[in-house]
């Protein structure tokens, strides 16, 4: 047996690795500096261009536009959600004819620009004035807001149907089989077992769809709807002051960010039974 002949003398810990000013840090600081510069420039534009009269004249209109945008988006989403249920059922149907029709619907509305669809409905309806007068629906198509709601609802119904159908498909087959072995009728299986599980998968895509709808609703301004974008364009056409677009940008960003935060909370709340606590 050998014993250590000498103690290793105590020594101070090695010097901490020197904080290197690496490429990533420099790039990061540079980019943040650019953002700060942009923020300051925007702030300066808003402060230096402060015009009490302009704000008094156009800010109420623009806030009114926010309300119109929210109405537009809310109505379209609710109507679209209702429409998406039969479309999703069709997409999941075993009947090839129903499947083909709903696929064509979904493909058309997801494959063409929302702007083109809006033109098709709004200006296209104008071509059939006589027909719509006859069936007493002209009052509906005469108003740009109604046309925008109709188009957006049809559009979002196609997307929501895909979300719903995809979520239902993602529920494992065993769930259907277990329900069947318990002799549950199809309707109950769907309502009590499949859809609740599907909705949790669908939550995130639904949130994205709402954000896309808020952003997409700006298109309504092109067919003369005075939503947030429409009021902004009106104010810009009167003042040629870029400020109004910055106001709109801030308002849109606020709407989208608030929605995203709320959705995150909602998702965490609804999936709390799935979270592992260990």
């Amino acid at each position, binding site marked *: 047996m050998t014993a250590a002949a000498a103690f290793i003398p105590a020594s101070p810990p090695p010097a901490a690795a020197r904080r290197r000013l690496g490429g990533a840090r420099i790039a*990061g600081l540079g980019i*943040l500096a650019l953002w700060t510069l942009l923020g300051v420039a925007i702030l300066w534009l808003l402060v230096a261009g402060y015009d009490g009269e302009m704000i008094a004249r156009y800010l109420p209109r623009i806030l009114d536009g926010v309300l119109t945008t929210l109405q537009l988006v809310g109505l379209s989403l609710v109507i679209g959600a209702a429409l998406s249920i039969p479309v999703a059922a069709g997409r999941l149907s075993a009947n090839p004819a129903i499947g083909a029709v709903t696929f064509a619907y979904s493909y058309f509305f997801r494959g063409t*620009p929302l702007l083109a669809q809006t033109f098709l409905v709004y200006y296209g309806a104008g071509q059939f004035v006589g027909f719509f007068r006859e069936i007493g629906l002209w009052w509906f198509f005469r108003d740009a807001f109604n046309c925008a709601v109709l188009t957006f609802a049809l559009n979002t119904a196609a997307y929501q149907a895909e979300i719903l159908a995809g979520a239902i498909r993602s529920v494992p087959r065993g769930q259907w089989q277990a329900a069947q072995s318990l002799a549950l009728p199809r309707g109950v299986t769907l309502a009590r077992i499949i859809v609740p599980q599907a909705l949790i998968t669908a939550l995130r895509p639904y949130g994205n769809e709402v954000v896309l709808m808020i952003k997409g609703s700006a298109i309504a301004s092109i067919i003369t709807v005075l939503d947030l974008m429409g009021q902004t364009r009106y104010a810009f056409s009167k003042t040629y002051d870029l400020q109004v677009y910055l106001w709109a940008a801030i308002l849109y960003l606020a709407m989208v960010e608030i929605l995203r935060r709320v959705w995150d909370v909602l998702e965490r709340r609804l999936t709390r039974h799935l979270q592992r606590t260990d």
Partner: protein
Amino acid sequence: MNEALSLLSFGPTGWGDEIASGVWVTVSLAASTLPFGLALGFLVALAKTSEDAYLRAGANIYTTLFRGLPELLTLFLIYYGGQIALSAFTQRLFGQPTEVNGFVAGLFALSLVFSSYASEVFLSAFRGIPAGQYEGAQALGLNRIKTMRLVILPQLVRLALPGLSNLWLILLKDTALVSVIGLSDILRNTNVAVGNTKEPFLFFFVACMIYLVLSMVSSIAFGFISGWAERGQETRA
């Protein structure tokens, strides 16, 4: 029916040639946005995977901004903001204002939007590559650039392709917005045709069908590209 066909025919009486030139503008705008959007999106994704918190924050601001703004508003901000800035600049420099090119403004705005979405696609693709790939490359003595080029990128393309093909289809549809700033794309030219013929339903329906055909052709092309990107996958049993 015959009337509709004559309206859509080529030549001085029909609108076929105008619409065809619109298709060319749409396709060339989308195609020239793609490389800028991809390159920028890749860089932003790289920044997001960086270990440096400042770099990550800078990249996240970028995505929050351009994914949160309506595409139409981004386009207007670039177009009118660029117009005002460039006019002031050239006025001072050359004594006369310059016009902002609608195509360039559209290219710029669409690249910003595309790249902010693409960065998220690339980011999740980066996360799909196991750390062992980096370690293996390091063990072989590859430097960082070679690791990226020879080991990571080929796998990244395969993982990112489905997301990118979706973004391409969205980009094709978003190009329709440039018609609002007066660029003669499909929608703008059909709009002009509508103004002259008073046949809105026919022309806008045709425009929609053209967009559908473009996205179908793209889907077929993406089928081939994904076959190519996954060429190494089949042999592995």
